[in-house]
């Protein structure tokens, strides 16, 4: 089981800023051969979809490919949130794993 996503959400005026640090290898499965050409060596393992919700209202969905960096760090901003609201971050990866984490807006 992957480590939990670290979530920090802060209110700034009428905007809530959410920063998320997910724990994921984001493996492309690629290696370079002797000629310097990229080759697929192992099965890629990466996050395919990310959903961020505030009190059950989806504030962003993301479709991701293998080119997102290891341990993805994502920042987004939305309106209509307040201190104490529940932020839920869910991801699904190419290996069928999923993880959901929650945090309150600080």
């Amino acid at each position: 089981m992957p480590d939990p996503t670290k979530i920090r959400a802060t209110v700034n005026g009428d905007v809530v800023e959410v920063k998320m640090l997910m724990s994921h290898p984001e493996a492309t499965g690629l290696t370079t051969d002797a000629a310097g050409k990229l080759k697929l060596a192992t099965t890629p393992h990466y996050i395919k979809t990310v959903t961020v919700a505030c009190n059950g209202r989806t504030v962003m969905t993301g479709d991701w490919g293998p080119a997102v960096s290891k341990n993805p760090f994502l920042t987004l901003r939305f309106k209509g949130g307040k201190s104490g609201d529940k932020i839920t971050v869910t991801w699904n990866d190419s290996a069928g794993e999923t993880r959901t984490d929650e945090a309150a807006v600080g």
Partner: protein
Amino acid sequence: MKSNRREFLKLAGGGSALALLVGSGWIPTRAWAADDVLHALAPGDNRKEFEAHTIDELVKALGGTQAQLSKDIDFTAPDIAENGAVVPVEVQSNLPNTKLIAIACATNPNALTAAFHIPDGTEPYVSLRMKLAQTAKVTALVQTDQGFFYAERLVKVTLGGCGG
């Protein structure tokens, strides 16, 4: 006699050097199918927008026809990235009714890195860290109800981000 010994030493030395190369992985021991286009997605991942290799293909896969260069997209990316595996990018769209923000690079194995769907009430802003295979133009693609718009920046990579 002397020359025979020399020949033998040459052969032995050459052979061990070759064995060393194979052992250290410098010479691939497995033959790969020669594909001009690398399919770098996981099995079962058939999302067509991720199979695009150019920005034009990507716009079409996302349902558009053509993207226009726009000055209303604030796209922040470093001029020089020391490590292509971690390139921080930030996109702020100042275009009205932004529905989608996509980050892409045509010279990566898959052009599209990430696409974000922005519902009403969410700021058209996103910040993420991406991988770059080589020095490349990185594109921020924005979809509004008026069509597709883009901004791009050249990022110089001193160390590639996939296949270390």
